[in-house]
């Protein structure tokens, strides 16, 4: 197509005709001008269809001028830079841009999904809910694949996003959302005070609708005034002007999210390393909402045909880009503003076949101007239908009929190829409502407008329902001044502009334009085009009892598409009101939620990606682990070696070797991640007595004791060995994952419940490197190192600690064991950790020392029946349940969880208890979490007898072992339980949960 008739020669203030720009749309090369949007350039090329609708796959064209667009959703960019669901009306073109339409399969022109259009009756309101009630298999195998293939809103990028994104936190005194006439006036008044001002607008340039909104400022076009103001603001030191920046959400205490598209319009920006998008997190003293208004359509039969667009869009496309919506249009309106479209188009040489005005006898200056310009006007009329060809893609004309709210009595055909429609304007109250602003219905405007405001929020201009330029200017100045006054700033002197605008005739509501015959049922009167919600669907929802507007919305999906009902909300309410004989305020309105327009995931993630997604904690030995082939696993934020596979070993072989090394020779474990908390003060012993279920105040200096910690509900939450170093000094060990949580827990009780206790709690996990030296040769290894610690059995008995020097370093040595072997843990300041580690390895070489990882550690402890918090417990397990009632003090008056543990239901029979399990087949390892069943051969659902909590192949005893929580487990010793696994019944015997060295002889040497 030449595109000639669609690019006007004398219009298009934003395009630079000297700069040709070439891009692709659905693979086809399109030529536009610098300054074009995808929508303006594609339309100027003569193409109208920009996408297919979500449900019925009807061809759709551009409807709006900016962020109110609901049909022209496109994907932009290739491969990993592809971004779906952008608005063609907002995407600025550049050389090489690649844009694709969405929702069409296989192509925009021939769309198989359009069959849904014929099947429309089956896709009525509540379709998805009703379909889910059909047999599930039918949904899974027939409907869902079909719908997914046929629809889907865009495609995800194919790989990791190569661009960078950032977030910035800023404070300002006055934030102005929107830079139309009201916003610019507000900014001028606010900035004159010297306060810090931010003015943000979603468009590439300031001015709002100053170019096409009519009126005069200081006797000239408001556009001239806007340009002057924009330049002045840009030059002011205390003002930050942000374009392409949408104020997306308003939250408590004037916290505002702004989304800036920094580099989307020019790839050289991101190529230079500048972030593609920026998310602004702003705290503002005062916020002035000057977000403007959004034109609303009128529902008439087949009002979704490509070529039917908002009057403001037809006007804006022509004025800004020289793009004509067609060669001969019809303007359909219930208000004066659309007359500006008719007048402007005619002056630019675009044919306007007729103005169809639903009002009976309106009189105003604009109407007089239209008459004087020779435009044909039909008052008291409406559009009863749209005549199309080429499968609905080409408008041939409309049917006009007298407007009354009943049947269509007669109709007149009017030839045209586009329709510019206006049902009035809705103030953009979204931001106002995000955080508590109230709205009220305005009968004159037939829409909701702001009512009461929360503190710190002001509103001006069209967003406030003030649509005329003089009014918007006055409100803008006033809001700026008021913001300064509220902030106790010093008002500055400005020379206020004066504006004039012709008086307008009143708008008269029209929601549903009746149509001929079957079309009058409303199933082609589109309300929410993106979600294919039609007038009849809204009526059906009413008939089916979804009368509340919130129910109607969810049942029909009205306003739930990516445009969030910007054009459909009030129209839908109007149609429902008309259908039910109620008024709109009686029906109410739905909630406005952030964000106003879509915010990219990239900007939400900001810099928190890749290595910065979650900080990784590494022990002092980490580099050694890496150099020695450790296979790491995450443990909280730590990375710990799971095992150290040697050449030719898989994980299982490596773990088996490591376990046998500990059992037969000696092993070395990096246990530095173990939580370590220093507890000091005269009341330290008393405090620990209150925190642990067992007693620590009686612990002698130099002695260690295993402690159990319960929460206030009586359930186990942590465990570990705590050591008394001095009369007022303890070292508490916690689980690796619990270190921070337990430190916080101790602090909370100290601060809030027992502030009288004289105790300091200091987490020192990172300050110490700590290693377990475990196995029959452990003592020999440590004795080989120089130092003053006597490691002999007599001098250093089990569950004691010593401080001293080892290999020339000051250490804390504990004789404790989590493996059941002769074992010492040696703690050393973290900066000396690597030196000690190397020294131990060197000394141990002669004794066959091998390093072992977390999996060997876990198997070693399971062989001994030691619990792990989080494996054998799940926040519903008590000390009694795991057989550790001996560690629950009966003497102490009080400790955390004591009173709850005494509640009858935690003591009664029938609770799950910890047992061991031995499978009949010694080579079968039960899966973690497997449930023993009452009748393993029966059909589900089956009653569970309990579940497996830890399960391993034990190299030490040469067979599989498991621990499990089983109902009444301790009374079931010797019983055989059945599991239904892998399609067969697996049997296991209930045994004591200690599988190796039951007497504990091995650590007693």
């Amino acid at each position, binding site marked *: 197509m030449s595109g000639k008739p669609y690019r006007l020669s004398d219009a298009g203030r934003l395009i630079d005709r000297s700069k040709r720009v070439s891009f692709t749309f659905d693979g086809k090369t399109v030529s536009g001008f610098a300054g074009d949007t995808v929508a303006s350039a594609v339309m100027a090329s003569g193409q109208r269809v920009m996408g297919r609708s979500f449900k019925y796959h009807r061809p759709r064209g551009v409807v709006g001028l900016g962020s109110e667009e609901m049909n022209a959703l496109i994907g932009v960019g290739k491969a990993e830079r592809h971004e779906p669901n952008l608005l063609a009306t907002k995407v600025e073109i550049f050389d090489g841009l690649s844009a694709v339409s969405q929702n069409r399969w296989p192509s925009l022109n021939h769309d198989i999904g359009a069959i849904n259009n014929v099947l429309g009756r089956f896709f009525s309101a509540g379709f998805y809910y009703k379909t889910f009630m059909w047999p599930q298999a039918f949904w899974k195998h027939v409907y869902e694949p079909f719908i997914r293939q046929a629809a889907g809103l865009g495609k995800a990028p194919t790989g990791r996003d190569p661009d960078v994104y950032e977030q910035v936190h800023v404070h300002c005194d006055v934030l102005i959302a929107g830079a139309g006439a009201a916003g610019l006036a507000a900014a001028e008044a606010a900035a004159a005070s010297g306060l810090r001002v931010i003015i943000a607008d979603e468009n590439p340039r300031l001015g709002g609708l100053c170019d096409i909104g009519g009126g005069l400022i200081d006797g000239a076009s408001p556009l001239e005034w806007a340009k002057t103001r924009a330049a002045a603001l840009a030059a002011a030191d205390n003002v930050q002007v942000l374009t392409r920046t949408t104020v997306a959400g308003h939250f408590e205490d004037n916290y505002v999210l702004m989304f800036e598209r920094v580099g989307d319009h020019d790839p050289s920006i991101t190529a230079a390393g500048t972030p593609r998008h920026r998310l602004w997190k702003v705290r503002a003293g005062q916020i002035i909402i000057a977000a403007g208004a959004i034109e609303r359509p009128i529902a008439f039969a087949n009002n979704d045909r490509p070529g039917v667009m908002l009057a403001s869009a037809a006007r804006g496309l022509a004025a800004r880009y020289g793009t004509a919506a067609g060669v001969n249009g019809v303007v359909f309106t219930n208000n004066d503003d659309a007359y500006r479209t008719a007048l402007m188009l005619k002056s630019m040489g675009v044919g306007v076949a007729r103005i169809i005005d639903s009002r009976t006898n309106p009189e105003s200056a604009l109407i007089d101007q239209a008459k004087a310009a020779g435009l044909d006007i039909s008052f008291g009329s409406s559009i009863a239908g749209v005549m199309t060809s080429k499968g609905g893609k080409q408008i041939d004309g409309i049917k006009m009929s007298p407007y009354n709210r009943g049947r269509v009595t007669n109709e007149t055909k009017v030839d045209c190829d586009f329709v510019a429609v206006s049902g009035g304007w809705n103030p953009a109250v979204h931001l106002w409502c995000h955080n*508590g602003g109230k709205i009220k219905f305005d009968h004159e405007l037939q829409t909701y407008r702001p009512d009461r405001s*929360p503190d710190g929020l002001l509103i001006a201009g069209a967003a406030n329902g003030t649509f005329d330029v003089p009014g918007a200017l006055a409100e803008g100045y006033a809001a700026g001044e008021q913001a300064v006054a509220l902030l106790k700033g010093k008002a500055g002197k400005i020379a206020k502009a004066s504006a004039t605008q012709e008086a307008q005739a009143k708008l008269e509501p029209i929601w549903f334009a009746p149509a001929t015959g079957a079309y009058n049922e409303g199933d082609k009167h589109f309300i929410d085009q993106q979600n294919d919600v039609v007038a009849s669907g809204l009526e059906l929802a009413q008939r089916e009892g979804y009368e509340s507007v919130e129910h109607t919305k969810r049942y029909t999906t009205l306003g739930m598409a990516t445009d969030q009902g910007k054009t459909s909300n009030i129209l839908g309410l109007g149609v429902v009101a008309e259908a039910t004989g109620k008024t709109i305020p009686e029906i109410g309105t739905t909630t406005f939620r952030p964000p106003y327009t879509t915010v990219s995931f990239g900007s939400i993630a900001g810099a928190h990606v890749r290595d910065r997604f979650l900080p990784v904690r590494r022990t002092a030995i980490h580099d050694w682990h890496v150099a020695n082939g450790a296979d790491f696993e995450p443990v909280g934020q730590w990375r710990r070696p799971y095992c150290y596979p040697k050449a030719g070993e898989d994980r299982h072989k490596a773990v088996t070797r490591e376990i046998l090394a500990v059992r037969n020779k000696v092993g070395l474990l990096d246990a530095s991640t173990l939580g370590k908390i220093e507890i000091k003060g005269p009341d330290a012993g008393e405090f620990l007595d209150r925190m642990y279920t067992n007693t620590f105040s009686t612990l002698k200096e130099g002695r260690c004791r295993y402690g159990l910690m319960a929460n206030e509900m009586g359930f186990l939450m942590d465990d570990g060995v705590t050591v008394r170093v001095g009369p007022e000094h303890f070292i508490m060990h916690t689980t690796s994952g619990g270190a921070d949580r337990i430190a916080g827990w101790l602090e*909370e009780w100290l*601060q*809030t419940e*027992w502030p009288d206790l004289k105790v300091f709690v200091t987490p020192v996990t990172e300050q110490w490197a700590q290693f377990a030296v475990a196995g029959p040769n452990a003592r020999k290894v440590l004795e080989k190192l120089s130092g003053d610690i006597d490691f002999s059995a007599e001098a250093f008995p089990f569950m004691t600690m010593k401080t001293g020097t080892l290999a020339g370093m000051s250490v804390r040595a504990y004789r404790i064991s989590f493996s059941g072997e002769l074992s010492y843990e040696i703690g050393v300041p973290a900066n000396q950790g690597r030196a000690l580690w190397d020294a131990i390895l060197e000394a141990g070489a002669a004794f066959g020392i091998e390093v072992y990882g977390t999996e060997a550690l876990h198997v070693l402890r399971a062989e001994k029946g030691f619990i792990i918090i989080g494996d054998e417990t799940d926040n519903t397990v008590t000390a009694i349940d795991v057989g550790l009632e001996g560690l629950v003090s009966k003497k102490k*008056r*009080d400790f955390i969880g004591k009173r709850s543990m005494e509640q009858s239901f935690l003591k009664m029979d029938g609770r799950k208890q910890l047992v061991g399990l031995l499978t009949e087949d010694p080579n079968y390892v039960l899966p973690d979490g497997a449930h023993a069943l009452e009748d393993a051969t029966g059909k589900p659902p089956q009653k569970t007898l309990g579940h497996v909590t830890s399960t391993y192949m034990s190299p030490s005893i040469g067979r599989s072992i498991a621990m499990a929580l089983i109902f009444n487990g301790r009374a079931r010793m010797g019983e055989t339980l059945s599991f239904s696994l892998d399609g067969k019944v697996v049997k296991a015997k209930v045994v004591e949960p200690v599988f190796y060295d039951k007497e504990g002889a091995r650590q007693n040497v």
Partner: protein
Amino acid sequence: MLVVTCPVCGVHGDETDFHCGGQAHVARPASTRPENVTDAEQRDYLFIRHNPKGLHFERWRCDRGCGKWFHAARDTVSLEFKAFYGVTELPPVELMKQATGTWAEFFKDKIKAGKAS
């Protein structure tokens, strides 16, 4: 996102720099008379919370500041903070007077003392 002020170190910050720890002034019966706590009292202490529309007393922790716990009085409708006060302190007398539910009970004999101070 709320702005919270720590009464201990004085820092102002986003609520994400703090941590809300639920209802304040919940007495732990076992701390004062451990041998004499009924099942019902323990249940109420653990699980029953007052959830008024309006004035709410709650515990907060200055996570990224001084690490201390403190108390706040907040309106659950407007979300506005009415007062911040120490973890061992009482709210301003006028707020104690507006308190409902178990708080009203708890503050009853303390209002007088508050006036005196």
